[in-house]
């Protein structure tokens, strides 16, 4: 593909020529880099992967800590011998949650940094904008950080796999849990006015019926005032409110409702129900979180050995950053990629790693083993209910597996920690 001829840079007097010279200079410089073997991003002692996350801009607050946690866990793995003797190099590029930036940084990662795979690209609007590009260039697009159903199109995008439990699954599980645990609830939903909110609503309606949702209110991230929406839910008599919200807006919703002396039960998604993050947002108002119900598919509980390991890695490799759901999430992503790479064998290729994932052999570290398959590119189809009680968020015994939008109660089957979290297959 790339053209590797060298030429004397024309000494132009016009500005355009000058620009070209700058481009050319860097082009020839890049050509000096060592050519690897057939597989991009893989050398004898490294595997280079990359991602796009918002590190600046308004969205950065909620997500910037994820990639830091992932990087930390990869460092931990590398310090313990890497995978098949190779270190994992994780390149994180800032896209400020803007699709035009995403397009340019992802091209840079693929064409310039020569990454082996894109891992955990974050955000629905951002990542959608590079889906086709990654497909055309046969770049494995693994563990996308969003629960949009877009990632699950094995026929069109055979290399793309979602990581989060999809939003429909979370909505269906929350809806079913409300039916299982409350008498005669008035179920309502506050949703983000995009794919996230709409898919959650679809899931909830799948579980409780189309007319089972009494009131639906939408918010937009551009307006940090949800008083009007919460007021509407209050006057509609809602008492079981499902939140298709990100953490900041979960906190806003709870805070606003408390101001209105409105005390319904709250049901949050995994993207908006992280206790430590919510405590940060609410400050002194944190007691409002008591009784908050949420779902998760990762072992985000102090009971778990994984949690303990992650805390240690966070201390040692992440400068003791605040430990939140983002930490568990980011490190789990790192683990599951490392496991996939390990299972792919001594000589990983792009086709082979996609095949490994589609074969269903990757187990992960969640509350049940992953269920990726040829025809299903989501692996987290089971979510467990968690409750905040006495300032601790922990799982209760309810878990639901959602197939085609139909929730079914199942037993959690957490994947045990082995070999101190260093995959060795």
């Amino acid at each position: 593909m790339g053209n590797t001829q060298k030429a004397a840079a024309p000494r132009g007097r016009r500005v355009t020529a000058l620009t070209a010279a700058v481009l050319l200079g860097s082009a020839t410089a890049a050509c000096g880099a060592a050519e690897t073997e057939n597989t991009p991003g893989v050398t004898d002692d490294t595997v280079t992967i990359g991602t796009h996350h918002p590190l600046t801009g308004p969205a950065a607050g909620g997500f910037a800590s994820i990639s830091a946690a992932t990087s930390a866990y990869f460092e931990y793995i590398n310090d313990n011998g890497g995978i098949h003797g190779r270190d994992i190099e994780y390149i994180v590029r800032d896209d400020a949650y803007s699709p035009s930036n995403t397009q340019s940084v992802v091209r840079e990662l693929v064409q310039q940094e020569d990454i082996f795979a894109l891992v955990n690209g974050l955000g629905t609007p951002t990542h959608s904008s590079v889906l086709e590009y990654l497909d055309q260039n046969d770049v494995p697009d693994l563990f996308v950080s969003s629960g949009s159903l877009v990632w699950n199109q094995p026929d069109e995008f055979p290399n793309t796999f979602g990581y989060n439990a999809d939003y429909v699954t979370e909505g269906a599980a929350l809806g079913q849990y409300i039916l299982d645990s409350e008498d005669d609830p008035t179920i309502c939903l506050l949703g983000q006015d995009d794919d996230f909110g709409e898919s959650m609503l679809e899931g909830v309606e799948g579980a409780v019926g189309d007319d089972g949702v009494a009131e639906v209110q939408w918010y937009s991230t551009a307006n940090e005032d949800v008083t009007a929406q919460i007021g509407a839910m209050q006057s509609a008599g809602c008492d079981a409110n499902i939140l298709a919200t990100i953490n900041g807006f979960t906190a806003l919703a709870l805070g606003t409702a408390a101001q209105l002396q409105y005390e319904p039960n709250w049901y949050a998604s995994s993207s908006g129900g992280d206790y430590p993050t919510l405590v940060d947002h609410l400050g002194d108002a944190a007691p409002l979180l008591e009784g908050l119900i949420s779902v998760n598919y990762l072992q985000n509980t102090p009971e778990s050995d994984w949690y303990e390991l992650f805390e240690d890695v966070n201390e040692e490799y992440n400068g003791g950053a605040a430990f939140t759901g983002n930490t568990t999430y980011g490190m789990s992503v790192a683990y599951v990629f490392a496991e996939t790479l390990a299972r792919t064998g001594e000589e990983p290729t792009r086709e082979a790693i996609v095949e490994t994932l589609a074969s269903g052999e990757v187990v992960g570290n969640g509350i049940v083993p992953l269920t990726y398959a040829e025809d299903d590119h989501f692996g987290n189809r089971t979510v467990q209910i968690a409750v905040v009680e006495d300032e601790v968020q922990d799982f209760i015994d309810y878990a639901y597996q959602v197939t085609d939008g139909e929730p079914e109660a199942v037993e959690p089957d957490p994947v045990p920690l082995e070999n101190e979290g260093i995959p060795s297959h």
Partner: protein
Amino acid sequence: MKNIFLRAALITVLLLALTFLFDSFRNYQLAVIAATFCTVAGLSLLIGLTGQLSLGHAVLMASGGYGYALSAGPAADAGVDGSALVLIGILGAIMLSGAVGTLLGLASARLRGPYLAGLTLALVIALPAFASQLRILGGEQGLSAPYVAVPELLQSFIAPEQWHAWIAVLIAALTVTPLAVMRAGRAGLRMRAVHGDETAARLSGVVPGRVKVGAFIASSLAAGMGGAALCIITQSVTPGGYDLAFSLLLLVAAVVGGLGSISGAAVGSALIVLLPWLIDTAISAADISSALQHRLSGNLTLLIFGILVIVVTIMWPGGLAGAVQSRFVRRRRRRTRTADKPEHATTS
């Protein structure tokens, strides 16, 4: 006038030839610069010559992108491909950006500087809302546009990115050359007259309203062409890509390059595409903690852009291009004012 065409043709051919020396990422960057150049050139002329400050050029560029996707998409479904497809798409881009631009232009003729800035600012903020309320625009995920493949004849020696760079460079040439002609001719004079003193302009027979509307429409079409080019390169158009931050970035390009100057617009466009990438590369190569890298990434670029805008506006009102050029000019003809310095041209 002849000079302009000759120069445009030369630069175009030179750039097309250069694509053979670039790898695919450089060609992608060149294509993005060319697309941005269309928009920035139009914006720079609008602000520099007529003094109308638009913060909404991201929306005009987006309407070009949406116009392209909305017309090229169905055309591709109907089996059209190749250059016919691109032409249909561009026609759609021209129609939509022209329509939006005309509406805004009519408003702009009535509004003075800050009021126009306020209206265009509100417009940029409303774009995501438009996209999610008008289902035809595809919500926050936007629309995808058909992939323009390399013609079979050329496939053996031209990569897709290079082909897209060709298309973008040609679009830029077709967009910016008319702007340059306009700037050098009577229309340019009229625009400067309106900027300097509307009353005086009126006395000498120029109708300020008409000139302002005309300038705004021309600038909108250029932005629309840029949007179409970007849509061809990235095969998609999303509201999130054309937010306020991007709109301000376009303004940065126009200001830093030199308001009212075409070559300045080229410098500015290259700067806003290349600088973030250069700084990011430098940061990730630097031997600092990853936490610090995270904080510097993006923010450092923003900081440098901010400083550039301030320094250029205060010290070299002609922009970087003007600063370089005027040094040569000064050496030769000390007392001639360059046309690239609208501020100076209007103070007399």
